[in-house]
């Protein structure tokens, strides 16, 4: 990488040059705008670092002039004043980035790298050729994860070759990109550097990477296996919500490299934990309490760390250890309990040791699912401090949280993101609603009704200071799944929400639907989509019998458009079979006629829901399932 540094403060520019050289970056320096202009037009650079206040021609003017001459080299402006107008002026004149003095050197480097990467035709932080990897961020070259020690010139050469595959690089091109303006090399010098690079590559086991094209220059040999060696495109500019396969590959590579780097230190932490457990057996009481807390902290941190590396099995083991530790009686630890802890931590350590090369990563498709599965909570609460406390508590339990303090904000939170395609993960899975909102005469009831009527319906738990039977009934009628009366600690509120979510997600519950109206079937599927039921839909009543036996459902929904009586008859038939006497049956009915409804109940229907169907049906289904569960729990049959 070659940079032109235009800066009149000699001490600063010297210091920068030194530091950049350490990063294997080649630097040309100019102390005023005119010299800078000459160099910039005569040579090609990967980046120009440009001070604003310069003699002869200031940075802004130089920037404008370069852009007017169609010079597209990325420009990073440096200035002493970090004022907004300066920034705007600089960026308007065509600069790509802006850094105020005094700056942090690391930050300058990061920006330089990022600018060069962005503008490069091959914007990859990782360049690969077989098992040879060049990491531009770390400026490291590895072959089979073994580091190669290269000089800055050798590194630069390899980087140019790797980023210009299939292209012959002439001596002039190499000289232009790798040497400063004063030190234009002879062909011999270039040849020597190429030779040294070849030698180092060969020493590390890389055969035949660089080809000499006689009379022209150098080129990277075609790769042994093209398919495996496709460059990993960096998805910086791809505004996708889901991580792409390429990004996942890149991360996987990075994570396993990092893991190998840190593995040993985590193993040592496990050993420290083992020692603490061992000491718990021998120490006296006051120390024991301290050791116990120490052990808790150690394992807690370890889980966070190894889990973040993607070592899920190890993290699971860590959780078991943590759980076991929490149930330990500190004052009188049972020897067997401690032994169990030691055994588990030994297993934990072995798991980490085993993990070296074969990190188990979750494929990107399932990652996306997992993110969307983390529950999103919408808090509708006008008491802002309370809302914030609830939010913190919910986030500590792993919820994503949105807060709405007014009815309109609450509506916006469910309408905008939920209706746009592909942003289902921004929709709340559950709403905590304070009924008494200042900006509505109907209080939260209207909102509650709207949430329940949404497709799919959004479960709502009500939080209110006004606890009365009438309120409770009204909330239940409108489809509210829970009623919490203030005052409660935020912890208690969020705990209640977690419990409702757990209860209300009867994952895998099998529901059989008999329905000959395709439109209604669609509606049912939509309505029940977010509940993870296993739905089976039968469109011909005649198929019911065989399907019943095959599916063995937990609940049956009957709805036939042909005639109400046929559904009731169907129910009768099902009930007549001993095997299906316990099966909960819900009838979807068009008729409010009490005689029909009575006949339905007489035939063995458990519940009747009037069409058109809405979220009420979900509540009834959940209710029915819960009742059945309770009944089963009570009777040993």
């Amino acid at each position: 990488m070659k940079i032109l540094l235009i800066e009149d403060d000699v001490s600063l520019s010297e210091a920068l040059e030194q530091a950049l050289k350490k990063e294997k970056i080649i630097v040309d320096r100019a102390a005023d705008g005119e010299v800078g202009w000459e160099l910039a037009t005569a040579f090609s650079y990967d980046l120009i670092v440009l001070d604003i206040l310069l003699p002869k021609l200031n940075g802004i003017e130089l920037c404008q002039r370069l852009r007017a001459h169609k010079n597209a080299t990325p420009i990073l402006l440096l200035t002493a004043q970090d004022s907004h107008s300066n920034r705007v002026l600089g960026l308007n004149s065509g600069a790509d980035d802006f850094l105020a003095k005094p700056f942090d050197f690391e930050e300058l480097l990061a920006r330089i790298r990022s600018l060069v990467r962005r503008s490069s035709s091959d914007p990859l932080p990782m360049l690969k050729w077989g098992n040879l990897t060049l990491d531009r961020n770390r400026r490291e070259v590895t072959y089979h994860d073994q580091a190669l020690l290269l000089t800055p010139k050798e590194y630069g050469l390899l980087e140019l070759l790797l980023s210009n595959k299939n292209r012959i690089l002439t001596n002039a091109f190499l000289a232009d990109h790798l040497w400063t303006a004063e030190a234009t090399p002879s062909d011999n010098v270039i040849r020597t550097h190429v030779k040294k690079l070849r030698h180092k590559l060969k020493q590390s086991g890389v055969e035949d990477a660089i080809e000499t094209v006689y009379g022209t220059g150098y080129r990277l040999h075609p790769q042994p296996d093209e398919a495996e060696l496709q460059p990993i495109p960096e998805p910086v500019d791809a505004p996708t919500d889901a991580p792409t396969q390429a990004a996942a590959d890149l991360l996987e590579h990075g994570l396993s490299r990092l893991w190998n780097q840190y593995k040993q230190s985590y193993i040592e932490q496990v050993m420290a934990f083992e020692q603490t457990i061992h000491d718990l057996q021998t120490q006296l009481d006051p120390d024991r309490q301290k050791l116990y807390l120490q052990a808790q902290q150690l394992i807690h941190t370890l889980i966070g760390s190894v889990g973040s590396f993607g070592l899920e099995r190890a993290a699971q083991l860590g959780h078991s250890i943590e759980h076991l530790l929490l149930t330990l009686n500190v004052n009188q630890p049972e020897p067997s309990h401690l032994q169990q802890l030691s055994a588990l931590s030994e297993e934990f350590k072995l798991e980490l040791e085993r993990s070296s090369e074969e990190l188990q990563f979750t494929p990107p498709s399932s990652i996306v699912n997992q993110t969307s599965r983390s529950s999103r909570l919408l808090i509708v609460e006008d008491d802002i401090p309370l809302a914030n406390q609830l939010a913190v508590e919910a986030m500590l339990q792993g919820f994503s949280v949105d807060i709405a303090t007014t009815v309109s904000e609450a509506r916006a939170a469910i309408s905008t993101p939920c209706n746009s395609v592909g942003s289902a993960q921004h929709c709340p899975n559950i709403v905590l609603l304070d009924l008494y909102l200042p900006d509505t005469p109907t209080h939260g009831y209207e909102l509650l009704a709207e949430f329940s009527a949404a497709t799919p319906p959004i479960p709502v738990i009500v939080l209110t200071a006004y606890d009365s039977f009438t309120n409770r009934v009204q909330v239940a009628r409108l489809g509210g799944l829970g009623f919490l009366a203030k005052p409660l600690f935020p912890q208690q509120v969020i705990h209640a929400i977690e419990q409702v979510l757990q209860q209300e997600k009867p994952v895998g519950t099998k529901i059989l639907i008999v329905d000959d109206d395709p439109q209604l079937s669609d509606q049912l599927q939509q309505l029940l989509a977010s509940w993870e039921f296993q739905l089976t839909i039968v469109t011909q009543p005649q198929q019911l019998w065989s399907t019943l036996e095959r599916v063995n459902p937990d609940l049956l929904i009957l709805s036939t458009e042909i005639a109400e009586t046929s559904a009731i008859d169907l129910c009768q038939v099902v009930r007549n079979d001993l095997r299906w006497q316990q099966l909960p049956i819900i009838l979807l009915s068009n008729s409010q006629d009490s005689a029909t409804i009575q006949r339905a109940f007489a035939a063995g229907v458990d519940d009747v829901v009037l069409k058109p169907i809405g979220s009420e049906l979900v509540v009834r289904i959940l209710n029915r399932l819960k009742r059945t569960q309770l009944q089963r729990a009570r009777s040993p049959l």
Partner: protein
Amino acid sequence: MTKRILVVDDDDGIRDIIQFALEAIAGWQVTTVNSGYSAFDKAILIQPDAILLDMMMPDIDGLTVLRHFRDNPITQHIPTILLTAKAKSLDLNRENISDRQDIANLGISGIILKPFKAQTLVEQIRALLNWDSAEC
């Protein structure tokens, strides 16, 4: 503009994972520090667009650092995301409650629980800060 992120965590591995993930996936500029003390100086120096702050550090804890951030006019408005492990559910001791009230009052942009998934970290941060993925 490329976003600048400051990561404060005493766990070397965690710092490196975060830096790697954010740089590789989003191209953000990531600066990391390993202690609460250096966090404060660094934040003033580089004035990042967002801070990821570990709660449990040996020198000074995240809550104290957060308090300092909010007291200083330079760092006051920098969105801060806390890094912490999942809390024990229904843990109602007094210290716990007052800490959480403090966090709520000081104002944070969100919490990322450890262990996190490196693969979705960028998405998670964008969502918490309402950053548009097309822009940064």
